[in-house]
């Protein structure tokens, strides 16, 4: 009995001292809006990092996506934010850097693993300083129900004409809703609609840069044409699409009631786990056969370092790891649809994700037109684009009026070349 007791006492002393060692560890808290990723961080990413870096513990603490920016700003102002900050692309993070709340990471050793395009979303306007490590981008396109396409004998549309021919065929058959998209949540129409098909009209980066420089206007045909195309989608949307929410669209598609889903690649994981049919993907159709195609390959997530963090060295160690191919590999495979921005190609196992990422070879990538610089003022161009894209599809505004309204709002505060 005494031996047993002694053993217990010994064990508890050892355990207690082990606890003490733990307490001496540095814990880094990661602020994020990706609460969907909690399991992936806890099961895959954090163990991988902690194994390689004893003495540093990670805590992933996500906030709801719509509240992230507001709560992060409040926490940073109050000095209670975590050590590692997940960065929204472009202005939201640039603002934090300008307020000296994010550390300049230009000299971080891992930064060499990223191309200037990948870093652009988290660099100053002149491209001299980079303040977040690029993590992942999302690609726009269309996901389709392969079974439905096979049944109706539709081949994957490459041009606009083929796209509408396919939609007509699906509509005539009547078994499927041709396009699963609603306008209730507004952003679907803008992000999955306008920013998805738009780059083909405004020629990707060329048009986007010209818009920022003031050489093109939102009333120019390059920018109004996509709205005209969107307006043509209306007859192919489901009944009552005006009140159809984002999750309604997702469900309509995964339940097999719709044939084509204007998508972002972030849907891949959810769709693969829910849909009972084969899926494929195609990039936004080009205007004429042989045209150069453009896709929206939009940097979406980066990670930065809170300037007020008391563990700068450890945090930099972590960020260097995030910049490594090892992280890219785990992340891209755990979250198919969030494509690594690392220059080292990542081998992905998900076929749908492979399909999306294969477009990078033949299509010219661009980022969403409203994200850089143009959404700094009030009225906010991104939010206005949501409203107008939905208006155009609902028929509340004509494409021309939508373009005029947006340009007028932009003219109100944006003076190009300044």
């Amino acid at each position, binding site marked *: 009995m005494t031996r047993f007791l002694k053993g217990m006492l010994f064990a508890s002393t050892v355990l207690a001292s082990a606890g003490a060692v733990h307490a001496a560890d540095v814990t880094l808290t990661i602020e994020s809006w990706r609460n969907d990723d909690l399991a992936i961080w806890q099961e895959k990413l954090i163990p991988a990092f902690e194994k390689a870096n004893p003495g540093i513990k990670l805590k992933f603490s996500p906030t709801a996506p*719509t509240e992230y*920016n*507001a709560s992060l*700003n409040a926490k940073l102002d109050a000095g209670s934010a975590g050590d590692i900050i997940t960065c929204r692309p*472009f*202005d*939201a993070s640039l*603002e934090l850097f300008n307020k000296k709340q994010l550390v300049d990471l230009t000299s971080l050793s891992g930064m060499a693993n990223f191309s200037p395009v990948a870093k652009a979303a988290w660099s100053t306007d002149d491209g001299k300083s980079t303040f977040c490590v690029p993590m992942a981008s999302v690609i726009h396109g269309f996901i389709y129900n392969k079974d439905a396409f096979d049944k109706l004998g539709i081949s994957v549309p490459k041009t606009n004409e083929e796209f509408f021919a396919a939609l007509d065929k699906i509509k005539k058959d009547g078994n499927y809703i041709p396009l699963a998209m*609603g*306008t*209730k*949540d*507004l*952003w679907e129409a803008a992000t999955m609609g306008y920013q998805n098909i738009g780059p083909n009209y405004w020629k990707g980066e060329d048009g986007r840069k010209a818009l920022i420089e003031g050489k093109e206007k939102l009333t120019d045909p390059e920018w109004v044409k996509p709205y005209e195309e969107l307006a043509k989608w209306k007859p192919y949307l*489901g*009944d*009552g*699409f*005006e*009140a*159809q*929410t984002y999750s*309604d669209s997702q469900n*309509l598609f995964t339940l097999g009631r719709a044939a084509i889903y204007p998508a972002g690649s972030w849907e891949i994981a959810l769709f693969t786990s829910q849909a009972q049919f084969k899926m494929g993907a195609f990039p936004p159709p080009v205007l004429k056969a042989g045209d150069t195609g453009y896709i929206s390959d939009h940097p979406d997530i980066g990670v930065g370092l809170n300037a007020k963090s008391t563990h700068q060295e450890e945090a930099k160690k972590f960020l260097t790891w995030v910049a490594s191919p090892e992280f890219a590999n785990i992340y891209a495979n755990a979250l198919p649809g969030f494509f690594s921005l690392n220059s080292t190609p990542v081998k992905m196992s998900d076929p749908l994700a492979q399909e999306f990422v294969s477009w990078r070879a033949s299509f010219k990538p661009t980022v969403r037109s*409203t*994200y850089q610089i143009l*959404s700094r003022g*009030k*009225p*906010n161009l*991104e*939010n206005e684009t*949501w*409203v107008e894209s*939905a*208006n155009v599809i*609902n028929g*509340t*505004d004509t494409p021309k009026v939508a373009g005029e309204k947006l340009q007028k*709002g932009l003219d*109100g505060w944006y003076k190009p070349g300044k």
Partner: protein
Amino acid sequence: MTDIDTAPIKRPIRWHIGVFLAPAFVVYTAIMILPLIETLRLSFYNTVDGASTFVGLANYQVLFGEQRWSHDFWNALVNNLIFFVIHMCVQNPIGIALAALLSVPKLRFVAFYRTAIFLPTLLSFVIVGFIWKLILSPIWGVAPWLMSLVGAKWMFAPWLGQSGPALIAVSLISNWQYIGIPMMLIYAALLSIPEEVIEAAEMDGITGWSQFWKIKLPLILPAIGIISILTFVGNFNAFDLVYTVQGALAGPDMSTDILGTLLYRTFFGFQLQLGDRSMGATIATVMFLIILAGVSFYLFAIQRRMRRYQF
């Protein structure tokens, strides 16, 4: 005798009044008065070259003078007025009618009806918003199905997504939720009418609906006044239901944008739009002034003229 009369009455200082008032006063000051003053102060400041500076009424000039801001503001104010009018024309009359029905002595299951009608008021606005979004959903909702049962499917439309009906739909959802409040207040007022008055009316041959119009309604007018002012304050502070049903951009095409949602977007920011505390505080102050004006109008112009009956 006289000695006693002229002796000065010595009153001890009544410390207990202060002591009893202190907790409420301190708490109320800390969580209501100070934030209010701070909001007022913030509306006179703005960030100039990175530093908070006193700018006088410049924020108000921007809000009412700049076309974009004033367009958003007036749009929200007009929508808010419509929101209020629908509450006054639908929620309160129906609430009064329900209370009148409940107070009919012959009615059975009064407690059940009362509870059932009051229940939505106790629900969280998140639940209310969510279930109504589902009910009215053109895809999975029960509304289109129920309407098809009575052959009225053709009348169904995706109301929440149409810029005309959306505001009316949201207002009616709010009516549904809060109808228990006027009902309960009026019900209590009706119960407090003494039996003698009713009996006297019956002796004079006034019964049924004419009794309600001629005897009961005048007696519950003060309660209706209270309900009106509660509705007014509640509606001009409303935000939650619109936010849960239509989102912070109060779509479609800003047709359900009310002052609360405009304030939220301005103060906290939304998506790529960054929060602007000064302009947010300006809108909050204007909302405060609107409510203050409404309440003052009621207190000074209406309540004083209202006739009260003492029994």
